[in-house]
Every structure is written in structure tokens, then in C-alpha cells.
């Protein structure tokens, strides 16, 4: 508890310092401004040694007397003041909640402080990097999505939970999974299997794949949220479990894998705590269709967006590995992509009974 108080105090001090600097600017009749580390590709470096994406030192200025920045400037301090209130009252809330807390109409105009949550989420991320404070330190969490089952017992906020007994529903992964919230207990797991979508996760759970294989089965509903990524990271480093990622055979699936592995551009400042550079891409590979007899008619043609994404990814320094380039180029050339569900053509449990066991046995993965 004391550790928590100390963190809170530190975070509060950071928020106040940010506001004080701005008040000083105003008193000196200077354009009030703050410096925000850039969360863009241009300010990202790939650390080849650590094999993770890192944020650079570039910052962007956000000043009030600049028409294109005034609104964001206002929003930044609106969010900062809301976070201050959360910290002071010792409450934690979702970023969706924060959006509603801070949304209201401005004066007698028809303009709102925020029009959509899409507008407030990036402001929170700006604040995180500006204050060098983690989201949970601001007493915020993302909407939870993501489920986990497996041969492990954990303690979640003091409650002991046996992940072997979660029925068909599974345990919902919270946004904050730091050691003070989630503690790992006894387990027999040999590895972590992260699948892209809930439907696939359900198949694996119903077939009790995790029991047979002794693995932690987790999904993140598309691009996995921070909680899921952080949990995977912790299991990898604290429990020494290898991580396998099963995603659709399309550019977006590959990108999910890449985020799990090296981190994302947007949250590059969190890579250290989230990226698992040794995560393995188990499927679906572009060559699998042939090898596993997946009929061509289950494929989907790539659209212009897919091709663009492929070209983009080929540019990223962390996509320069030959095997990777071959995957992407093969896909682009064949002009075909496959969803994981395409394997069901070979039988509903083909994926859990044949495909994955064989891939693992043959060590047919990319790393």
C-alpha cells in the first residue's frame, strides 16, 4: 500500500509541474506550451540488439495559441485534471469512463470537449509519455478484452483463481496485470499460445487443447490490449515460457505478431514492459495452404488495403528478416489470404488435433 501511495504522489507531482509551467507561461504573457514526446514512426528506432522498438527523443510542441493545437492543448489539461482527481480519490477507471467524465459542451457553442473516445484515447497516451507515467499510474485502464485458461493458479487482487476451472468462458484478463495485482501461483504450463480471435480460442478451449498440451491459452481479440501483452510478457520472462502466436494469414495477422514481438509504434515507450522478442509465429503461414491441404476456394483475395499494409511493413526495420520478407512477398504474389477458420474445411477440430500439434512437432515456426 505504501508503495502505491509513493507512486501516486510522484505522479501527482508530475501533473502539477506540467500545469505550473503553463501557468508561468501565461503570467509571462508567453504562448503556453508543453513538450510531448512524438509517438510516430519518425521517432521510433528498432533496437536490433534488444530486438524491440524503442521511442526516440523527438518531441513535439503543443501550444495553446496555435489554432491546430489549441483544442488538444485544452484536452490535455482536461484529462490531466481528471487523472489528478482519480489519483487523489484513489479510484481507477476505464479510458471509456474517463471519456464520459470529461466530455461536455463548451460554453454556449455546439462544440464538445471531446466528440468521440477516439479523440480522448490519444490524449491519454500523450499524457503518459509526457509525464513518463504508466497508464495505471494515472489510474486508468483500457477496456478489457482477452481471455485466458490453462494449467495455472493465480491471485487476482487477492482472490485465488484456478485457471484450470474456468469452464467455457475463461478468465477475463484485466488491464492492469502488474505484480501487485496479479501474482502467479502453481502451474504445469510448458508454453503460452496466443491466438488472434475469441472464436478460435473457444475452439481450443472446448477441445481442451491446453489440458492435453499443457499450455496457457490466451487471446486478445485482434490486436491484443496492453493487459494481455503485459501478461504474456510476464509469463515469458518470469516463468520462462516460450510464446507461440497463431493469427490469420493476412497482413494484419502478421502485424499483430510483430507488435507482440517487438512492440508498437504508438506504445513504443512500453516496449520494454510488453514486447517478447522471442515470440514465435506458428501460423498461419503462406505455405500452410499447400502443406495442409487447405483448398484454394477458402482463400480471400487481397484488397488494395492489404497490399498497402504489406508494402508498409516491408519498410519497417524490424521486418527485414529474410524469412519474414518471404512470407509477406509470397502472400502479395499469390494475392491470397486465409483466415484461421479456413482450416475447418479439413474438419472442425483439424486445427487442434492435427495442424497445431504437427507444426509444433516439426518446429515449423518463424521466430
Amino acid at each position, binding site marked *: 500500500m505504501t508503495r502505491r501511495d509513493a507512486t501516486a504522489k510522484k505522479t501527482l507531482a508530475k501533473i502539477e509541474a506540467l*500545469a505550473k509551467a503553463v501557468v508561468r507561461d501565461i503570467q509571462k*504573457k508567453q*504562448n503556453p506550451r508543453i513538450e510531448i514526446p512524438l509517438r510516430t514512426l519518425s521517432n521510433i528506432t528498432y533496437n536490433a540488439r534488444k530486438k524491440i522498438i524503442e521511442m526516440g527523443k523527438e518531441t513535439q510542441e503543443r501550444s495553446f495559441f496555435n*489554432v491546430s493545437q*489549441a483544442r488538444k492543448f485544452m484536452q490535455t*489539461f482536461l484529462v490531466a485534471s481528471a487523472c489528478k482527481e482519480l489519483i487523489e480519490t484513489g479510484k481507477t477507471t476505464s479510458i471509456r469512463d474517463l471519456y464520459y467524465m470529461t466530455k461536455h459542451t463548451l460554453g*454556449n457553442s455546439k462544440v464538445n470537449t471531446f466528440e468521440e473516445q477516439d479523440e480522448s484515447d490519444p490524449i491519454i497516451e500523450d499524457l503518459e509519455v509526457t509525464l513518463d507515467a504508466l497508464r495505471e499510474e494515472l489510474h486508468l485502464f483500457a477496456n478489457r478484452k482477452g481471455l485466458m485458461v490453462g494449467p495455472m493458479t493465480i491471485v487476482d487482487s487477492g482472490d485465488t483463481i484456478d485457471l484450470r476451472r474456468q469452464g467455457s468462458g475463461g478468465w477475463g484478463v484485466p488491464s492492469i496485470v502488474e505484480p501487485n495485482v496479479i501474482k502467479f501461483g502453481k502451474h504445469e504450463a510448458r508454453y503460452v499460445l496466443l491466438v488472434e480471435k475469441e472464436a478460435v480460442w473457444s475452439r481450443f478451449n472446448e477441445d481442451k487443447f491446453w489440458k492435453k498440451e499443457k499450455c496457457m491459452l490466451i487471446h486478445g481479440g485482434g490486436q491484443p490490449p496492453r493487459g494481455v501483452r503485459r501478461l504474456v510478457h510476464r509469463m515469458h520472462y518470469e516463468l520462462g515460457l516460450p510464446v507461440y502466436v497463431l493469427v490469420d494469414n493476412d497482413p494484419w495477422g502478421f502485424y499483430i505478431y510483430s507488435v507482440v514481438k517487438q512492440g508498437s509504434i504508438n506504445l513504443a515507450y512500453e516496449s520494454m514492459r510488453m514486447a517478447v522478442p522471442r515470440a514465435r509465429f506458428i501460423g498461419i503461414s503462406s505455405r500452410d495452404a499447400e502443406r495442409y491441404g487447405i483448398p484454394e476456394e477458402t482463400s480471400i483475395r487481397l484488397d488494395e488495403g492489404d497490399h498497402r499494409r504489406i508494402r508498409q511493413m516491408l519498410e519497417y526495420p524490424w521486418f527485414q528478416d529474410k524469412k519474414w520478407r518471404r512470407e509477406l512477398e509470397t502472400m502479395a504474389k499469390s494475392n491470397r489470404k486465409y483466415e484461421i477458420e479456413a482450416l475447418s474445411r479439413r474438419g472442425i477440430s483439424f486445427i487442434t488435433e492435427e495442424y497445431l500439434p504437427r507444426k509444433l512437432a516439426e518446429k515449423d515456426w518463424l521466430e
Partner: protein
Amino acid sequence: MAKARRKAGEQLELLKPGPKARKSSSSQKTTRKTREAVKESAARSSSSRAKKAAVKSSKKSAAPRAAPAATAARKASASPATTRRTSAPASRATAEELAQRQREISVSEFFSKNRHLLGFDSPSKALLTAVKEAVDNSLDACEEARILPEIVVEVRAVEGAPDRWVISVEDNGPGILKTQVPKIFGKLLYGSKFHRLKQSRGQQGIGISAAAMYGQLTTGKPVVVWTRTGKARKAHRMEIRIDTRTNSPVVVSEEEVEFPRDHGTRVEIEMQADYSRGQRHLLRYVEQTVLANPHLALTFCRPNAEPLVFPRASEEPPKEAAEIKPHPYGVEVGTLMLMAKESKARSVAGFLQTEFSRVSAQVADEILRNAKLPKSVRLKDVAEDREVAEKLRQGILATKIMAPPMNCLSPIGDELIRKGLISFLNVVEEEEPEEEEPSGRSSRRAKAKEKTAEDKQAEMEKAAADSMPPEEGEEQIKGKRFFIVSTTRPPKVYRGNPFQVEVGLAYSPDWPQDQPIRLYRFANRVPLLFQRGACAITEAVVRTDWKNYELAQPKGALPVGPMALLVHIASVWVPFTSESKEAIAHYPELLSEIRLALQECGRKLAAYIRKRKAAVHELRRRSTFELYIDEVARSLHEIVGADEEKLRGRLLEMARLATGGDRTDEILDRVASRRRDEFEGAEAEEEYR
């Protein structure tokens, strides 16, 4: 009403020519030349200025063309006596011969056959034509007498006759000698201005007697004239009728009367007309006449409406235009021959020197040298030998001759154009923008729109705005802002004819933004109300790229924007496209001068609009900042406990300074405050771009 109109139509029908005499449009053209010829001959027989008459008329229709004109005249006239000369070679027809033949035309017949050319083609246009003739005369007379004109125009209903109206025009001019009144009002084509090379209004008309005759033919009533030539003199009231067979006046009655002015004239003509249809033209004529004559004070009394009072915008009478001799460069072969024939000079050199401007003895010699004519060449040869005349003309063109004197021009002048525009905008009734025909829909909609949007804004801003010092070139008129600029080009010469172009431009950010501009065209201060599309002025406006000057402009059309544009061409001889004298011909020299003048004004306009746009932009920025200031102040207060009100005040002040400060408010004529509702207006304004 419809019945009245029909009845009017029927009555007019009586005046129309029989099918035999009704000619194709091409013959209509020539008939007009006939009219000039008639005018000329009439003048010749009654005026000592015969020589000048010849010069003047042949200037317009050169001698070679006089023959077909004569033919047309003969056809038009019912007299078989004239058919004899049909085969006469063109160049042999002299003014005298023409005069002899044409005297036999019955004036009333001539008139009825040419009604459409004389401006009495429809009962709705008749009122305008008659008023125009009388007002133009009043203005010309006052100008010559150096009197500041004061004119009262009145249109009165005639009891019991819905299709009859009385037009009455009263002036404070020099008056007319009693002995002259009959001829002026009772004899067709009798006047003092036709035979001169001088910038005047009269030449554009047909003469007041034609209006009187129209009245007489449609109502049987004589024209009534009151006139007084001085304080010590008696005023006279005379009723004059025209004997249409002989084209001579008949004095119906004559009496000494009281007249409210020391000197002046009042003319009243009762006529069949359609006021409800014609009032629009009439109003436009009156308004635009005032616009081009800032020294004129005019009152317009209309049936069932408050009188419109146009006060004088300037106490300064226009500069008097001098009469000049023609410049040699403008003369055509036929004219040259005719002039030679008329001249009393004894040698060709003498002829050149006395009949033309800017020809000295040396220049005359040089012309003869360049013409490769022996010094001994006789004037008679020039008059009779087309080849000699042509050589002489070539000689003229090969000789460098000084430009004609420019004192024959009387432009309105920069300052007065501005004043004219201001008082025009102060009085002008906001009707639809100028249009050929009342193609109701778009214009009527515009009017409705104008009302609501403007009234609201005007009310809101007026109180505050009136106390603000206007921008340079900006005027407050009826609660609206106007940016007014004008340009007077230096005089230029076209084919020996001096002319001068003037442009005045009034732009109002408070006018509707999406209408084509209002274009007002003038020649020698007379408004051109019809045939806009055929006019060189319109063409010059359309061909100017107004996008350079911050106005929208559909391809090949007038620019769109809240602007009134005045274009005036002053010249001793305005080249009209046709007999109706409603559009100016497309001469390159004219077009280029008009465009230069438009560009000059356009550049100033652009600077003004850009400044406003920049200020509107600043205001938008300010409002953006203001929108967020409360929130920022509150958040900062909540985080560090700083004084929220102080922060707010500081930020508001900073926002103002960061967006041009008070200057922004001034340019937009806005009270320096943070009223967002006002900003809405500015925003709506920027929308148009």
C-alpha cells in the same frame, strides 16, 4: 388591367405600317439611316448649320452608304415620285439631292413605320422613352447654361383611362424662347445638338417632339409646355400640336401664366402607356441618371408611391465639353468627298486646315505630299473623284498628326463617381439586379433573401457600426459597409475620336454574396438600359479575370459578388452597335481602355477584400482560442489552484493580441468584444470564396 393593355395594343395597331412597308430587320437598319437623312434634310432646310449637318451625318453613314439609305427611304415613303432615282450611282448622291427627295415623306407615316426604332415600340417602353427625351434635354440645357440642374419627373394617372398616363418633366434650365417652343415641340427632328461634334446626351435620342407626337397619335392630346427664360420675363404655357402631314407645329393655345421658378421649362405629354410594366425601366433610368450626374437633384413622383428624392451629391457642375472639328484620322472617303463638296475653302490644303482639327499649313502640305497629289489638285476633284479622295485619305493616314484636343470630353471624374455611387446607393430602391428582362425567378428570390439576412444584420450592427470610423475608401450607407473606388483613364483616341473611360466600383460585404454583380453602363452620362449582352462594356467586364481580384466568376460570365460596377464612356462620338443606341460596339481600343480601368479598380478591390479576409481569418482564430479558454483556465485552476478568473482574463487578452488586436475588429467594423454571434456573421461571409 389586362384589358387595358389589350386595348392599348389594339390602338397601337392602327399605327403599324401595312404589310408592304414592313421590312426585314436588315431594312430596318437602313431605315434608321433614312431617319438620319431626314433629320439632316429637315435641319438643312431650317438651319444655317447646313454644312456641319453634312459633316455630322455623313460621319455616321458615309456617302457610299447613303444611296441604299435613300432607297430605303423611298420604299418607306409612299411617294412614287422618288422611285426615279433608284439607279443613280452611290457616290453621286449629294446631301442636297437627298434632302429634296426626302422632304416629301409624310412625317406621321415615317414615325409610325419607325416607331420601334424610336423607342416607342411598346406601351411599356413609351414612358421611359418620353421621360428620357425630356430629362436628357433638361440636363443638356442646364449644362450649357451652367446651371445646377433640379428636375422633377412625374408620372400621373389619367382619371377614367387606365391605359393613359401623363409624364411631366420640369427643370430649372434656361428656358426656351417663346418663338422656339412650337418648332422644338411641334416639328419632328428639329434640334440644336445633332449637328455638332460634341459630347452631349441629345444625340442619343430622337428628340422631344417625337415623344410629343407619340402622345398626340395615341391620345389626340397636344403637348403642353411651360417655360420661362428669366426672372424679369413672363412665363408662357403653350399647347402644341404637330401637323403630321407637313411636319409643322400648330399652336393650340398660348397664355401667360405663373411659373414657380425664375427660369425653367416644364413639359407634359399625355400618352397611351403601360405603367405597371414600364415602371421598372423608368425607375432604373432615373436612378442611373442620378448616378452618372452627381450634380443633379432629382425628384421622382410616381403614382401610388412616395416620391423618390435624389439629393444633389455634388455642387460642382460638369466641366463643359468643347465642340471640336473632326480629326482627319477618323474620316472616311465618302465623308471626305461630302465635306469637300460643302467646304467654302479654295484649295485642298485650305480645306484640310479649316475643316479638321490639328491640321496646320505644314501638316496639310505633308498630307498632300504623302497622298502623292500635286499641289495644284482642286477641291472639286476631291469632291467628285473618288480616286482622288481615296488618295487624300491615304495621305492623311500616312501623315503623323497630333491627337485631337481633349477638351471636348467631360468625364464625370473620380471624386464625383464616388459621390454619385454613394448617393445612388443611399436612395436606390433595392430591386433585382440589372437584367434584360424580368426573368423573375432568380432575381425575385434574391430579393427575398436580401431582406431577411440583411435586415437582421443591419439592425444588430447598425448602432455600433455607425460610430466607427470607416476604413479608407469605405462608406457607411444605410447601415451597410461599402468599399468604393473609381478610376478615370486618360483620354484616348479611336479613329480620330477622343474618348475617355471611367469606372466606379462599390463593394459591400453586407450585400448577398452569391449574385452576379450589378453592372451599370453609361455613354455620355446616359444610362444604357438594354442589350447588355451585346455591349463592349459587358464584354470587357466578362473578359477581365475577376478571380485575380477575389471575386468568383463563372466562365464567360459576369463576376459574382456583392458589387455594383459603373462604366462610363465619354466621347464626342460613341460607337453604338445599332440604331437603338443601347450597346457600345466592340472596338479594340475601347475594350482595352475599359479593361485597364477595370483592372485599376480591381487591384484596389482585391487589396480590400484580402485585408478583410485576413481579418475574418484572425477573427476565426480568436474565436477558436476563446472557445477553449474557459476550459483551460478551469483545468489549470483545478490542478494547481491558480486563480481561474485571472487566468481567463489573461488568456482572453492574449488571444486578442495574437489575432490582430483591435485592428481586426476595426477592419470588420465590429465592436471589439467577444460576441460569438457576431462572429457567426463573419464566418458566413468567409464561406463565399
